């Protein structure tokens, strides 16, 4: 954190506690949010925000939250608020509700980080740019905490977290840059924001080898690895399907590779 800055990170109080207590608090918050959304078409801000002490750990992914009994910040459980909102609204229009919820809370530090990591909906260039820009806006306060993301015992700095979670965006969209993560993310976000379909295509093709490497059980590797094959298949995608891969996110590309692998197997 830059010296002289007084930024501190604030998180909603309903995200702190043991797993069970957070679950209960989040359920109440979900009902409250659903109520207001139903009446006014908008989500309420959290009633109480608490300052996170410098260096305190925030759990940002459920799969590494192995110790449910420890009281800790459980940012990943924002997904349960959304779930309770959906439930209260009887699962109608879940995409619109989700997008509205995200739009509201991208304006907060906690929402910016949560939605950047959650990658809900289509992981498009445009949506990712918005998410990254939100994190960048709140970079200083977010630097105050440490994060549990991939490994249960190893808390990371914001920078390390962003490399782990959004490294794919930097590799795809600002590959030539070195240096501070913040700068690389800024560059990637700008490019993603104004990317044309052809720009996205180029970024995807650049990232395909990385996705292929991650798919160790793909059966038709030789065909799948051919850029001509990839380009041909990508250009055939309809708009919603292309949108899902347009950000060039590794897991989305890998999903497509498995699809194509399956289709090749059927021939």
């Amino acid at each position, binding site marked *: 954190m830059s010296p002289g800055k007084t930024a501190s990170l604030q998180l909603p109080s309903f995200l702190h506690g043991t797993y069970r207590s957070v679950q209960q608090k989040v359920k109440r918050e979900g009902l409250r949010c659903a109520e207001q959304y139903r009446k006014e078409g908008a989500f309420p801000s959290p009633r109480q925000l608490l300052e996170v002490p410098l260096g305190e750990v925030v759990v940002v992914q459920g799969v590494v939250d192995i110790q449910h*009994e420890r009281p800790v910040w459980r940012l990943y459980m924002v997904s349960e608020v959304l779930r309770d909102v959906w439930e209260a609204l009887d699962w109608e229009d879940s995409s619109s509700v989700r997008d509205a919820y995200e739009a509201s809370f991208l304006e907060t530090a906690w929402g910016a980080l949560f939605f950047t990591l959650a990658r809900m909906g289509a992981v498009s260039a445009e949506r990712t740019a918005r998410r990254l820009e939100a994190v960048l806006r709140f970079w200083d306060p977010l630097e105050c905490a440490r994060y549990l993301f991939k490994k249960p015992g190893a808390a990371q700095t914001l920078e390390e977290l962003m490399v782990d979670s959004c490294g794919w965006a930097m590799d795809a969209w600002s590959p030539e840059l070195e240096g501070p993560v913040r700068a690389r993310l800024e560059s990637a976000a700008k490019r993603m924001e104004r990317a044309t379909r052809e720009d996205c295509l180029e970024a995807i093709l650049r990232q395909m080898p990385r996705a292929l490497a991650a798919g160790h059980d793909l059966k038709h590797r030789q065909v799948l690895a051919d850029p001509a094959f990839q380009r041909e298949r990508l250009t055939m995608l309809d708009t919603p399907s292309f949108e899902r891969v347009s950000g060039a996110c590794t897991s989305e590309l890998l999903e497509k590779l*498995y699809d194509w692998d399956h289709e090749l197997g059927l021939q």
Partner: protein
Amino acid sequence: MNGGPAVVAETTGPTAGGQASGPTVQGYNVPGRNPDSRMPWQLFLGGASHRLIAYMYSVHYPDTRAYYNKEPIAAIIGETSIGRASLLLPDERQLRPDITDITRRVLFEIKPWHEQGLLEGRAEASTYLTALNRTILIGRHFTGGTDFHGEILIRFARGQYIWRLEWRTSEPGVTLYRWTRSQQRLESEAAAYEAGQWTDLSVEELHQYGGWVEKAVQDMISRREKLATVSGAMGLVIDLVGETARVVLWGALMGQLGTSTGARQPPAQGGGQVIPFPTRPAPTAPPAQVPAAASMPLSH
């Protein structure tokens, strides 16, 4: 001495006495154990086992988008937009698969390693697949996952035995797990590993796991991740402080050591450590047939 305590696993939250509470908890009763029995010690730690195995799945498939540990299908569809959540029947929305891998379009149900677990797992996997596949708009349908197996050695605080969590996907979509322990009391995990004396475990299976871990480790290295190295061993260190698990095992250990059973107090310094262990070279022979689930006799 009348064997170990009957224990019931709890999925979440601290509980005095280690008893299950609430209708949502999955309980697996362990019958009182005959000390003369050669039956492996089977402990069903419910939530802790699920969380550990799910974590290991995420290690094995690091670039996959997957949902773990009881996220409802409606929410999974709602978050990913691969389908339409409103296509689910009302009683399907809250179904919660143990592992839902969106990228590879496979799912796994994690169950205890016995006949009942296998049957339940099979039925649940089938139900979950039907529900999920009802909603799909983008990409392939889901199928039952295969080829997911492994093990973790765990030493609990003050425990003199090394515990082993092992899992195998015995049929598509059904991953069975079991706990066993080292036959002897051992001071160190390295000794336990070298001794290789696990109840109900073959050396061949140890070799299989070594190869699997080596692969996972190599995957991690290829992503430039740092690994803890402890005197030449490579592996994972996880602090397992499941309070209920602690209570259950402490009671079980006390029973096994011949002191009064039913000790319910957790140890003053709780917790445990997942033990790193030396990698072995990958087996040159093809892996052995995944064992069918062992059936548990109803009384012994």
